[in-house]
């Protein structure tokens, strides 16, 4: 028997699923006592180069409220040509096309190795991908040029039939008509006025799109003037971008430029809504500063009034926060309802209002990228990363994904946490107990990447007095419908199963089936989700309590004797993850702007397990003249990658030793981390911020804030000793944390 470790890895590789518990407690009460809920991280579109999609429709259970897809777990009567649904036990005849089915001639979906299978289906017209650029023109000339370059570059990456559109904004919002000869035309909207969808429809020549399907077909025939196939308007658009000017309205001294981000987005959403509802589309918003006027305004144009900080928010002193957030939420929901996703590329030294705007991306599955300037490789490469392609040459993006979860009777779905919105599909699978986005068993993910991962929380419904019999198996089916980036409509079905275990008798088994990494990430998502709506300390307290309860449940100790406390191997790292999580910017807002917090949280709730884990507990590679790099401790959380050069080495570097032949090895030393970093940079999205710093350099704080504060003013005994200077932080060290944890875990009063 393979270890759980291997099993987990295998499952993840095949199905993109990581469960917190790989044996499920057989009753609700038992499940509750396990502290960490039965839940999983699911990556719907995990890249499976080895999985060829099948070219036919899935076979569905005929029961109206089930509709589960035929899968390897189903009982099949080859002679009667019927199959029993493993969720509702309905017996279904095979469709005529399966007439030749037999035990030796099974369709793929019945084979165990195809617990995940992808169907290509013919449904509706194939609409090309749509990319709508929404560009802020209130940028510094340098930034604007860089951005224009990036945009022009991106045009070359788009498939020729993709539809593109361009909206620029500053004080006004301009929607550019792309097909015109001669005079460049654009429609202009005032940046201060919220336009209803209807008002935007007033734009003439916009094909009137009734929301039903007939309209959509028509839309394809008469593409809007504002969204044109790239192959037809390539030149136009390139020129247009080339002639793009900075916002021509003068900015008086002491004022911010007037930036109508809100209206621009409103127009973009309205435009797509009117022309291509329920079609995969991507709104890409590029901003160089906060919205300063109109709906969605985050800060006024007076420079003397700074943009809101956490302090302001806590004091309820952020004037525009609620209104703006409400505005963007409404917009995000509208966009999500139509299946359009919104990316935000914000490059500015100050905040740009991501806090308010984050829901745009969170609800629609769009990206958020934050940088200092468009004129950096961070942005350029990240932006390029959006258009990265898989081994088939298709974009690593998918649109209009709908995830449906079906469970066997013993389980119900509590909710999901990730870049999705609820479709409010009530059904037998839906639990009344909500965790994350609940109350439904279907979610919409307007945009998906192979790494988009949802945390899905389940509930065991069997009562304690009627547990599930031993040896039973529970099953979950994930049905993901989406539009592939090559415009195909596909359905990916993943059906997984786990054994039930009696928590009373098989607690060891259950304990050993614990996936502490998955559990840490899932708990972290819950924490982050709570942090969005609750006060930071409350969330931390909740996390601490969960951790303590878990330790109490699974720890081996003598009461009131902290030193006796032991955790099994399967849980040994979990407290450490929690320790780092507590200190992470996902939960701590100190030293982070509201925008940064939003940014981190946004990324945390969508990355797959590995990335998430790294973000919780950074990995620090150290390099020396001797031997290969070794992982010493947590490196910077995801968005940052710091190249920390020690003091001594820095002096050498300044002296220019690396240029001297006799110090060749030194040069290599310096180069090594950079090379490694580049490797990492290439695989991450968004591109981590690469910070090259040295001891005592200003940017060293990024590193120091991430590493374990093993020496702080809290343990001054270390002061002056060889371990070097203390790292000044309010946080406790891991050691202290663990000590407290043990104490509390063994305490009977807890």
């Amino acid at each position, binding site marked *: 028997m393979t270890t759980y470790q291997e099993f987990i890895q295998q499952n993840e590789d095949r199905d993109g699923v990581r469960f917190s518990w790989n044996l499920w407690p057989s009753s609700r009460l038992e499940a509750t006592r396990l502290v960490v809920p039965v839940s999983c991280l699911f990556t719907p579109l995990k890249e499976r180069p080895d999985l060829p999609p099948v070219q036919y429709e899935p076979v569905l259970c005929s029961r109206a409220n089930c509709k589960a897809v035929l899968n390897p777990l189903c009982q099949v009567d080859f002679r009667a040509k019927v199959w029993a649904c493993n969720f509702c036990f309905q017996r279904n005849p095979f469709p005529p096309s399966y007439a030749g089915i037999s035990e030796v001639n099974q369709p793929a979906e019945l084979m165990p190795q195809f617990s995940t299978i992808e169907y290509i289906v013919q449904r509706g017209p194939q609409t090309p991908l749509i990319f709508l650029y929404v560009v802020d023109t209130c940028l510094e000339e340098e930034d604007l040029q860089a951005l224009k370059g990036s945009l022009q570059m991106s045009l070359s990456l788009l498939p020729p039939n993709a539809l593109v559109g361009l909206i620029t904004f500053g004080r006004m919002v301009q929607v550019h008509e792309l097909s015109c000869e*001669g005079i460049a035309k654009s429609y*202009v909207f005032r940046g201060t006025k919220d336009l209803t969808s209807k*008002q935007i429809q007033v734009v003439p020549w916009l094909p009137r799109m009734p929301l039903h399907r007939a309209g959509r077909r028509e839309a394809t025939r008469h593409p809007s003037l504002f969204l044109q196939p790239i192959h037809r308007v390539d030149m136009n658009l390139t020129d247009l971008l080339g002639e793009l000017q900075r916002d021509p309205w003068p900015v008086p001294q002491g004022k911010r430029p007037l930036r109508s981000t809100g209206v621009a987005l409103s127009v973009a959403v309205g435009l797509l809504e009117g022309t291509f509802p329920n079609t995969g589309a991507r709104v890409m918003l590029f901003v160089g500063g906060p919205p300063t006027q109109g709906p969605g305004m985050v800060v006024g144009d007076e420079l003397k009034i700074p943009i809101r900080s956490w302090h302001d928010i806590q004091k309820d002193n952020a004037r525009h926060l609620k209104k703006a957030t409400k505005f963007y939420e409404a917009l995000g929901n509208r966009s999500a309802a139509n299946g359009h996703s919104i990316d935000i590329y914000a490059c500015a030294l100050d905040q740009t209002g991501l806090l308010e705007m984050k829901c745009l991306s969170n609800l629609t599955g769009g990206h958020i990228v934050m940088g200092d300037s468009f004129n950096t490789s961070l942005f350029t490469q990240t932006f390029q990363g959006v258009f990265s392609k898989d081994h088939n040459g298709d974009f690593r993006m998918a649109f209009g994904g709908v995830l449906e979860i079906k469970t066997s009777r013993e389980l119900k779905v509590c909710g999901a946490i990730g870049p999705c919105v609820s479709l409010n599909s009530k059904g037998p699978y839906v639990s009344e107990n909500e965790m994350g986005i609940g109350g439904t068993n279907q979610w919409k993910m307007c945009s998906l990447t192979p790494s988009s991962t949802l945390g899905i929380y389940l509930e065991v419904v069997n009562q304690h007095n009627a547990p599930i019999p031993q040896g039973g198996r529970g099953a979950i089916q994930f049905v993901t419908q989406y539009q592939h980036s090559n415009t195909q409509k596909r359905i990916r079905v993943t059906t997984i199963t786990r054994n039930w275990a009696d928590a009373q008798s098989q607690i060891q088994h259950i304990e050993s089936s614990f996936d502490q990494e998955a559990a840490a990430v899932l708990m972290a998502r819950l924490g982050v989700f709570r942090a969005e709506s609750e006060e930071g300390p409350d969330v931390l307290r909740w996390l601490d309590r969960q951790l303590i309860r878990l330790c109490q449940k699974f720890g081996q100790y003598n009461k009131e004797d902290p030193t006796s406390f032991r955790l099994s191997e399967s849980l040994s790292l979990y407290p450490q993850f929690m320790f780092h999580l507590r200190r992470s910017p996902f939960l701590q807002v100190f030293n982070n702007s509201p925008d940064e917090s939003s940014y981190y949280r946004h990324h945390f709730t969508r990355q797959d397990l590995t990335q998430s884990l790294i973000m919780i507990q950074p990995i620090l590679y150290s390099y020396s003249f001797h031997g290969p790099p070794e992982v010493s401790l947590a490196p910077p959380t995801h968005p940052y990658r710091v190249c920390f050069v020690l003091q001594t080495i820095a002096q050498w570097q300044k002296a220019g030793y690396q240029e001297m032949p006799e110090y060749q090895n030194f040069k290599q030393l310096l180069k090594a981390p950079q090379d490694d970093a580049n490797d990492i940079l290439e695989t991450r999205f968004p591109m981590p911020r690469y910070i090259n710093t040295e001891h005592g350099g200003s940017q060293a704080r990024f590193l120091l804030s991430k590493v374990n504060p093993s020496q702080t003013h809290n343990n001054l005994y270390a002061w002056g000793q060889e371990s070097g200077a203390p790292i000044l932080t309010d946080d406790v060290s891991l050691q202290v944390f663990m000590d407290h944890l043990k104490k509390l875990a063994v305490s009977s009063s807890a």
Partner: protein
Amino acid sequence: MNVNQHTPMAPPYGQPQPSYGQPGYGQPTYAPLDSGYPAPYTPHNGPASAYHPGIPPQGYSSFTSFPSKAMAANPISDPSSPLDLGPARGPPTSGPTPVQAASQYNQHSSGDMQNGPPPATQAPPRPPASLQYNPGGVNMSAQQPSFPQHYGPPPTMHQVTNQMTGMHISSGPPTPAGPGYAPPPSSQPPTSHYSAPPQPSYSQSHPPASSAPSQLPPSSAPAGSQQYYPSSAPPSQQPISSLPPTSQQRFVSPGQPQHTFPPSSTSYAGPAPPPTQPASTPVTQTQPPFLPHQPPFSSAPGGQPPAFTTGPPPPAQGSFPPQAPPPSSQPGSFPPPSSVSSGQYPSSMPPPQQPPQSQPPTYHPGPPPPQAQMPPTSIGQSNHQPPGPQGPPSPTGPLQQPPLQQGMQTGYPPQHNGAFGQPRSPQPGYGGPYQGQPNYGAPAPTPQAQKRLDPDAIPSPQASDMPPVQKSRHRIDPDAIPSPIQVIEDDKAKTTEPFTTGVRGQAPPLVTTNFQVKDQGNASPRFVRCTAYNMPCTADMAKQSQVPLAAVIKPLAILPPDETPPYLVDHGEGGPIRCNRCKAYMCPYMQFIEGGRRFQCSFCSCVTEVPPHYFQHLDHTGRRVDCYDRPELSLGSYEFLATVDYCKNNKIPQPPAYIFLIDVSYNAVKSGLVSIICQELKSLLDHLPRENPEMDSVIRVGFVTYNKVLHFYNVKSSLAQPQMLVVSDVSDMFVPLLDGFLVNVNESRQVIESLLDQIPEMFADTRETETVFGPVIQAGLEALKAADCAGKLFVFHTSLPIAEAPGKLKNREDKKLIGTDKEKSLFQPQAGFYNNLAKECVTQGCCVDLFLFPNQYVDVATLGVVPVSTGGSIYKYTYFQAESDQERFLNDLRRDVQKPVGFDAVMRVRTSTGIRATDFFGSFFMNNTTDVELAGLDCDKAITVEFKHDDKLSEETGALMQCAVLYTSCSGQRRLRIHNMAVNCCSQLADLYRNCETDTIINFLSKYAFRGVLNNPTKAVRDTLVNQCAQILACYRKNCASPSSAGQLILPECMKLLPVYLNCVLKSDVLLPGADVSLDDRAYLRQLISCMDVAETHVFFYPRLLPLVKLESGALPVAVRDSEERLSKGGVYLLETGLHLFLWVGASVQQELLLNIFGTPSFGQIDSSMTSLPVLENPISQRLREIIDSFRAQRSRYMKLILVKQEDRAELMFKHFLVEDKSASGGASYVDFLCHMHKEIRQLLS
């Protein structure tokens, strides 16, 4: 009385004539003969001018602090006047109030008379302060010269000489009057034209009159005299003639009238002598008609003349004097005044008149020539002052009768009307001649006839003549009623010298007359025209007379090239010097005191310190030494450079911007309009207004097209291609861009041209038919706001804005409402939106010019709100078709874009204590009761200001008004344009009636009435007009005219055209729409009239109808009256209204003429749709096209030529403009209206 005296004198032709001429315009009648034109003019002008002269004295005093001089002048004038003028004027104006008349006359006479006495006195005064006095002198005769001097410092010497000359002259003959009347010029010329003979005869008697001429003599007596008076004018006259040339400038208008008389007299002399007449008989004949007209209405002039009373007519006069005289006596009485004119006209008039002449001749032909001037005058008098004087006048009349006859007839008819009612019996015989209305004619005829017969031997001849004429006896003979043509031609003939503005209260020549103006302290009539140049002193008088007191101000009027535009005065950082209390600007009326350290405001009497930098010593007369170096101390019109205090927000204004907003909806594109505009703009943009022709205009331009949405264009010079920015959110308009929208033409030329090339293509396939309008103006407004500048929007619009947007309108045209009490609502805007928008526009200095191209109802009343409130214009091209309307539209557009214009203007009219500007009419906006705010003010816009008394005025100081317009010039400079105007004040109503201007009154009344339709039923408005007119005339009749039978219609000379013009106003489409007149047209006209100046309203209400005969000669043919009867089947006529231009072709025109004009010999082959005449190489064609071009050049709007063939369908439209006829919509004919008016007057009197 005087007249009488004179009359006696008169016997000798010369003397009588002068007397007549002076008194009644009668003299002119004579003039006709030799100096046909002069005479006629003189009569009309004469009275006025004559009076002026009297006034001048006052004026002088007021003007310059030369009271002494003024005094001197006055005395002189007085003496002289009593002699000559007294009589002359007396008769005309006030038969009843001889005294008044006398006094007035005196004044006038002073001018006219200039008789012996004055000369002496005058002479002395002038010499003393030659320079300074010059002004004073100028007032009289020499004044003019002085003014010129004012302008140029150097002149002093010249002035002196001039004055000297003038002095001499004046001194010589009748000096005072002569010079004062400088007018002689006018008269002189005519005289010259006319036969010398008369002059000689007159010379004797006329000396006084000639005195004026005498003045002239000094300068170039020989030449001038030769021409004018040479033969006719005795030595004295000759001098006068000489004067004209030299003195012309100086004497100009003021003197002219008087002079005219003299000349006229001379002319009369000519005519009087039978011999001369023969030669001019035709002329005289024609003249007669005119003369008569004058007399009857202007009876005052002629009638009053005691002379008449003296004559036999008196008795008759009482009842029928007029009638009786009509034939003979009328001629007599009128002749003096009118006859003169007629005499003058003859030359010019003849052609047109000839047809009628036939009749006249019949009537009086005989008499006129033989009877000589004397009789006519008397007749005229008789008419006016039927009773006593008439008798004698009639005899005199006879002489003049020939010319008068026609006039007489006309004149009499009216009288007959009135008179007929009573004593008609006698008239029967005459009735025939009168043809006119049985009513009038029937009864009156006999009496008249009798009278006429009685008075003169002439009657008989007349009687004989009459019969033929009488054919249509039942009605009043149209030729017998006052003829606008006659008046116009008289005035033209009379005006031969520049009009100098130095004399206070002097009425300028008519707007139809070409004349030059010398600014000598009052604003040129091109800038300011008043209804009355002699304001009543008290509110009671004003109320009694009902004569509106108003001024028509055209602040930025363009002056002819030979006149200097207002000087720009820069007072430095302190800004213009102003009165501390009333804030009046420094002007010639300010009195410097305390050695020049302070000045006293003549408006409010407040004393203000003179700023040190402005200090200047005074000379011994109390005048600043630098008076003539400073325009603001010596001129009536000038400009100040405004300082930053006068700028909005205390910021120097940005250069203005022009924004073109073009409708590109289906209709506009289809009609070709869009491409026409775009094509034209390409070249037009090089002609934006600029102050320095060498420099590029600093005006920036922007472009917008629109249908249901708006398209802005970025034409920044750095762009390779223009960019179009569409704003579809019209509910809340904004400007999508700033930088690149308003650009300098030269910098962005390529981009702009590219844009203009592409616009028509871009919208070639448009199917959008709906348009917006409110947002279009808002867009322009917002653009100007964003650019922080003033400017002008050119909106080219086609249809009713029914698209969903602010200012959306619905079709509310409902013909059923016409004539009901609700009709007024159709003139009111549909929605308040545009009123608010207009207010915003005004605040920003955003002027809107609207070009409409409707194919159906567009609700001009509402669309026009903004243009009208912002000082903009509306142009309307109904059923626009590229081929036929392009030319008109493009010419309008060119002119509109190129014409000088000021922005963000505020006009304030300040007045001296006693009167106050109470009401304003025109295209502007008012936030309070005093400031007229004009977002834009162009050179064609006139503002009519009404004055009311709030206290008593004094005759000594007169009434002053100062119009100050603060505006931003097209180069972005902030300026103040000041116009000063001083008028006389009178305590006698007769003076008021003697010195007013009917054209201006009509301008006021029409604007008043057209505004009235907004709030009152049109019927009520019409009734009000008729009532007011009746009251004006009744008041005159009651207080100023000599006692006469109630049956007589007696009109003041100055207002004898009031009925005919008023009738035209009443018949206008606005007040009395025909079935085919759309509501839009009415609203359009209503708004159009509101900013017209006097010249425009004049031709609009009384179109100019030119018979195309004798085209080869240089002069324009004399117009004929607007009546179908005047059209000859064999003729071709040109009719212009200022808006329309018709070429009417009679059905039986000679082939040759057709060939010459149209290049085809056949009437049937003429293409009636042609809009321009073929270019043919023959003199007639060339000349005709020249005339048409010159007409167009005169008007602010291009007139499309419409060809009307007789009996053609289009003739209906043409006939609509024959305003003396009954109109299809029920408007009364001139004759009918006159009768009606007479009835009204009688009712008022009884």
